[in-house]
């Protein structure tokens, strides 16, 4: 599904700002990968680079989706190929209703694939179902997108978008940050209900907490822009117990 080879990236317009220092990663169809790491390790950058955020510049390496390089594609083109990024800090957009925006997103996707746009009636039905499934307050989605939403509501709204857009590869960028246990469970339930042999996930997180609810197939430890260890679900528990100190020291010694 997704293959990352020797990926290097830095911040646009800032010299010597390399954040990713040669990442190699393969995510197979239907797999859930967790990427863990201390603050500043580059895990959020990785999530954003994969989606094509213009703030970052890829300086070396490649990323392929189903064998095709995506680095030259715009974020919307990547979305059309089935990629999705759940944001750590979803943008607040005054005057734009979630309904309207998601309809535009689906329409763009349909257009790019030469398919017919979904009718307003069918979309409304789908939207209402998903609102109920995600457990988001129906009054909230009538308001401006994310404006005045609490942290938990914003994340739930990200899950709503995930449900409506049905991506093939969903990247969750610290979706658990700022959530209480109940909200965390809702996010996890959303992800678990969408797990399928056809859909892959990359779950970026600082804490092991989220992984109590979402059991990953593979766990990677990211330190200073490199994956320093890869293991099974129990690797997350090790990190929970021992922290990142030994990895940081090892990375420091290598530097």
């Amino acid at each position, binding site marked *: 599904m997704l293959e990352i080879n020797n990926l290097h990236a830095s911040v646009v317009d800032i010299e010597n700002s390399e954040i990713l220092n040669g990442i190699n990663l393969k995510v197979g169809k239907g797999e859930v990968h967790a990427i863990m790491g201390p603050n500043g390790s580059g895990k959020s950058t990785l999530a954003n680079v994969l*989606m*094509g*955020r*213009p703030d970052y510049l890829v300086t070396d390496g490649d990323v392929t989706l189903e064998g095709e390089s995506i680095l030259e594609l*715009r*974020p*919307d083109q*990547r*979305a*059309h190929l089935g990629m*999705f*990024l759940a*944001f750590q800090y*979803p*943008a607040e*957009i*005054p*005057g*734009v209703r979630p309904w*309207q*925006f*998601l309809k*535009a*997103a*689906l329409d*763009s*996707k349909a257009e*790019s694939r030469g398919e017919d746009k979904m009718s307003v009636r069918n979309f409304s039905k789908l939207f209402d179902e998903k609102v109920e499934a995600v457990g988001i307050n129906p009054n909230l989605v009538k308001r*401006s997108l994310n404006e005045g939403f609490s942290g938990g509501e914003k994340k739930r709204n990200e899950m709503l*978008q995930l449900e409506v*857009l049905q991506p093939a590869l969903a990247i969750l960028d610290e979706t658990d940050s700022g959530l209480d246990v109940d909200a965390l469970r809702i996010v996890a339930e959303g992800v678990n209900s969408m797990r399928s042999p056809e859909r892959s996930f990359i779950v970026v997180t600082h804490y092991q907490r989220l992984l109590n609810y979402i059991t990953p197939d593979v766990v990677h430890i990211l330190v200073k822009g490199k994956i320093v260890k890869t293991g099974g679900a129990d690797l997350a528990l090790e990190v929970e117990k021992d922290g990142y100190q030994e990895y940081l020291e090892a990375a420091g010694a290598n530097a």
Partner: protein
Amino acid sequence: MTLATPAVAVEKFSGAYESLAAGSSDVPEWLKAVRQQGWATFSELGLPTKRRGNELWKYTNLQPLAAADFAYIVGGLVTVDQIKAAGPWDDAWNTIVVVDGKFSAELSNLHDTVGLDAGSLAEAISSGKGDIESQLASLAGREEYAFTALSTAFIEDGAYIAIADGTELEQPIQVVFVTSDDAESRASYPRMVVDAGANTSIVLIETYLNLSDSAQFSAPVGELFAGDQSTIRHYRVQIENESSFHLGTTRVRQLADSNFTSTSFAVGASIARNDVHTLLDAPGATCTLHGLYMTSGSQQQDQEISTTHAKPGCSSNQFYKGILSGKSHAVFSGKVVVMRDAQKSDATQKDLNLLLSRGAEIDAKPSLEIYADDVTVAHGATAGHVDKDTLFYLQSRGVDEETAKAILVRGFAEEMLNEFEPKALNDFVERITDERIPILLAESDTIGTA
């Protein structure tokens, strides 16, 4: 007042004024005196210039207006279908149509409505309706402001609306000011007088449009009298063609516990000014002045908004939003004056702008003059570009860049558009906005750079 420089462009208007004065034997003496006074003031002032010390016109160059010529011909040929196609319309509304400054009984759509007297201003003048003699040109005309003075010199016709005490009207009253579909460049000075009695409630829509593509000059003046405990929900739509000059004035005098709420939609004309002043002249009066302006190309769009708190316990709110592209220019000049007696006043001012191009310019100038000590005031103005993080968010969901930009611009306008409550009016301003956004975006070069 003595001026160091000679009055500009007075001679351009003098011929028309003289023939109007010569041919008005049937006009009441008091109106002749009002016109003379208007002309005397205008001929002393001339068209405003950017000369030093002229704070009101510092950011606005009227040279193109001074250089143009306009014929003064009242009335022209227009059909109802043309008006319906060009502006908002609902058969259920009471609609007054004023063509090239002249009331048209044929085009107006007036229902028998208890408590409402709506029709021609000329007729109200000749038959001496209500307080017309004391009201006309009392709020706008005797002050030293060139365009109200010029308009006053040319008072002939327009709209007169009187609402009897205690009348509450659900259906809006619309006044359409239209210039006719011929190649001629015309000058028009339509007036509107609205006399809302005590305990009245009305919805008033003012619509300015022209049917030709040639440059028109209009200096319309509306004077509104809000009686005790009256409620006026006012809308002003200005969609004139982009060769025209629109120098509009609205003056409102509010009595005790009256409520005046106004929302402007200003997208038209080459040079446009929406000059609004509300006088809170009795305790408990409140006014809310809102508006949306959108400019592209080389348009100039001014909002000259002021409120005077003359009596205690009044509140005012000014909130405008602008979307600018191309090499266009907008001015927000908001002023609140709180007089010495106006204790317990509450005033807010806000102007938010979305700049879509490097060539666009906004001059935002909120100001407060406070002579009382017990007041609550707040003001602010911002100008920003479309946020690149927000753009990325939308794009990451699969929305292409053009659509994402359009969604964001529309989102910025949304809260003002939502204020246009009458259905046909709301549909109209939304449609015009949706038509404008691609034009604004075609001239945009700053998105994603902020």
